[in-house]
């Protein structure tokens, strides 16, 4: 059965008793102070659709597109409203209604959701082409000749944010199975992600390294599909279901103690395969087992008692502040482990970032679909980061990483972006260097 607001269990909508606790945590309500731009306002609109009081209109579609899907409201909600489910159902409903359809949009959605992010090999192929373009000097030439002016306005603005493609992808850096030097205590699977694989494969290497140090056998399938997060957030439930099945086939949960993700946005979706595959007799049980074994890397390391490194990650002491990816903090409720992990590292001083769990405006494809609101949030984030005086911003989601890096660069900031696992991996690596006596 199609996922629509009308056939959704009505009690999920009723769960919102409109107390308003979500209002001060919603970045869009904070901007406009209009109820429809708030979580309880959006839920009221969804309920009106379910009640036949409102059709799926252009305005309704626009409103669901204006929502970041950051899920800060879900953290704030004492009543336990499942906003993520409501939001994804509303977006699926909108897709099915066809109200957003246009030739140009269908082309881009088809290219990304149906072609690129359904076929990991094609995605890497495109990544390779992009890498050639970036490194051969063509990109520099295009920019110098201002040929980017030929791009549509939306893409032109985002062009500088195109991720730098890594020289090697994850499978060229990480063997399919790697064993720790000491006897293994755990067996884990490592998810390499899509953007993470193309733009941050070194972070995947760092993740594998810290797992190995902590006694885990790391299994990393060389070709991994998208987890379906992108599809689910954009109303393509059927594609998300297909991708979830593929994941379960590739990494049967029964074979591992944990399945590790290091990207906040993916992790949030990866924990919800049970719901996605509830009606699938063949996969339902495995999906439940899968959800129970998904761990964010920081969460897993703290759970198994991460060994504090005895060396420092860099010669100079580092002041680090931490930005929380929405889907790690609000989607997965992992807030303390990344901080605890940073505190384990000698030579790192962690200072709190004001509004650390406030969205940076990346939010999947939000920076493309809602450039103005995205820029507002990025600016706010960058101001806060710079005001801390930290040298390093730690975060753990490729979307946030790219967005904030662009913002800091534009603001002329020298703050360096790094993921907590990278700092940890560097410290471990330095343990093997000859120590200078102090």
């Amino acid at each position, binding site marked *: 059965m199609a996922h629509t607001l009308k056939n959704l269990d009505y*009690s999920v909508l*009723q*769960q919102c*008793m*409109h*107390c*308003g*606790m979500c*209002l*001060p945590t919603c970045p869009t309500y904070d901007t406009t*102070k*209009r*109820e*429809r731009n*708030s979580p*309880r*306002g*959006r839920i*009221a*609109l969804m309920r*009106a659709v379910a009640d036949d*009081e*409102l059709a799926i*209109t252009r*305005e*309704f579609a626009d*409103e669901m597109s204006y929502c970041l899907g950051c899920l800060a409201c879900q953290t704030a*909600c*004492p*009543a*336990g409203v499942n906003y993520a489910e409501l939001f994804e159902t509303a977006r699926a409903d909108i897709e099915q209604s066809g109200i957003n359809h246009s030739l140009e949009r269908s082309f881009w959605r088809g290219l990304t959701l149906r072609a690129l992010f359904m076929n990991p090999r094609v995605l890497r192929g495109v990544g390779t082409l992009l890498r050639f373009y970036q490194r051969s000097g063509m990109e520099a030439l295009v920019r110098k000749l201002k040929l980017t002016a030929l791009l549509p306005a939306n893409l032109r603005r985002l062009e500088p944010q195109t991720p730098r493609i890594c020289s090697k992808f994850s499978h060229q850096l990480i063997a399919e199975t790697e064993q720790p030097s000491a006897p293994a205590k755990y067996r884990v699977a490592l998810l390499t992600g899509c953007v993470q694989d193309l733009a941050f494969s070194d972070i995947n290497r760092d993740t594998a390294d810290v797992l190995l140090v902590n006694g885990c056998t790391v299994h990393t399938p060389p070709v991994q599909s998208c987890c379906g997060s992108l599809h689910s957030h954009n109303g393509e439930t059927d594609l998300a279901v297909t991708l979830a099945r593929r994941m379960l086939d590739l990494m049967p949960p029964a074979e591992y103690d944990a399945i590790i993700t290091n990207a906040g946005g993916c992790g949030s979706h990866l924990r919800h395969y049970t719901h996605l595959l509830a009606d699938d007799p063949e996969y339902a049980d495995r999906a439940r087992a899968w959800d129970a074994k998904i761990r964010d890397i920081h969460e897993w390391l703290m759970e198994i008692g991460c060994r504090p490194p005895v060396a420092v990650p860099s010669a100079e002491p580092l002041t680090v502040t931490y930005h929380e990816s929405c889907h790690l903090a609000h989607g997965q409720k992992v807030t303390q482990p990344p901080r605890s992990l940073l505190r384990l590292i000698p030579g790192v001083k962690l200072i709190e970032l004001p509004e650390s769990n406030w969205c940076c405006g990346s939010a999947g494809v939000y920076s493309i679909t809602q450039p103005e609101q995205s820029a507002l949030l990025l600016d706010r984030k960058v101001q806060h980061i710079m005001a801390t005086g930290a040298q390093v911003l730690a975060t753990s989601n490729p979307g946030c990483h790219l967005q904030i890096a662009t913002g800091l660069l534009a603001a002329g900031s020298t703050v360096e972006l790094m993921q907590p696992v990278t700092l940890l991996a560097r410290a471990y690596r330095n343990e093997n260097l000859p120590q200078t006596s102090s």
Partner: protein
Amino acid sequence: MPLADSILTRLADIVGTANVLTKLEDILPYGFDGTATFKHRAGAVVFPQNTAQVAACVKLAAEEKIPIVTRGSGTGLSGGSVPSGDCLVLCLVQMDAILEVDPRNLTLRAQCGAITIKVDEAAAVHGLFYPPDPGSIKISTIGGNVAENSGGLRGLKYGVTRDYVMGLEVVMPDGRIVRLGNACVKDVAGYSMKDLFIGSEGTLGIVTEVLLKLLPRPAARRTMLATYDRMESAAETVSAIIAAKIIPCTLEFLDQMTIRCVEAYAKIGLPTDCAALLLMETDGHPAAVADEAEQMAAIAKAHGAREVKIAADAAESLQLASARRSAFSALARMRPTTILEDVTVPRSELAKLVAFIAETAARHRLQVGTFGHMGDGNLHPTFLTDERDEAEMERVHLALNEIVAKTLELGGTITGEHGVGLAKKQWLRQQLGDDSFELMRQIKHTLDPHGLLNPGKIFD
């Protein structure tokens, strides 16, 4: 039905086109407040930017006989800001400036849309304190607090919103702007008119600016959590603390159902197996606080507390208070609809009412979670039900009637801090008696003869 185009045009002339909402998608989310089961679509929603614009909108509405419902953040718990008829909703959240903090006179002046917690934060910058802290402190507006005379967790020691209002700017039903009260500690020049508007629920005038009294910020604070196996022991503890001549700022009570729901949300390690929990807080001079905290802990233990836990630091105190503030919404986890009550009795009668509520719920086969301000005799029995189940809703109504009757028998009131609004007006005459009820109506009729301000609230 939307308002006529000619009227919308004139409204747009006053507040600007962008500040007039009429589209269905824009106005549907203004059809409710924080109260369950009340829903009504507004004719239009406008966002005035200053007092002059409020007055101009009211004048226009008065000329055209259009009802007006004023709204802040829409967190009310009696349906006070739910639209009536094809009304004009005046949403005042954009008038949110804190205009002045005066440390010499210990006052703060703010526009009506300022968020309550921002008021206290502005006071804190000067080492000052705005004590009233309703559960919705992070969301509600100060104007809404004045209109509802909101209470909070510190009522026992510090009183309620009324005790901190020194002056008001009010737009009257005909559009005149009046200023009532001033920064003087003493003022007996005529009737205390400001008091008429505090708690008037938007039915007499529209509060656009407030002058508030501040206190020095307490230097120390100690928060404790006492757990009990018997509900009565918690009530006895409260009586014994008061008898010992201690006035704590907070004595909050949660029953088992509420504890379980709050813990499911907040995950702060509340004991879910105890029958009742008392959140106690004392503040003031460090020496007095240390002394009182010690005595309160001893009294709690002497009256059957299983355990008394003292919050380690300010962060833990805040965590406990925040968890308590989430109680009402957290109860909504259990069932689709939560019907919240606000009955209040003299403190000495509280234990009787607590027992009566539990017994009544059981007799009508209803789920209830009860929490509240034990030091104030103010309880929030919350029925967990489903509005689609007519038979059960009927039983809820019967139970509520019985609880109200019992409350009044004990010398209590149908509402301690939420207001009458739509939710409690069916019982107002029962509480006041005919003469007092008519006196109230007379005042309403005198100030608002056409019944244009928040019609249908408090009384029909």
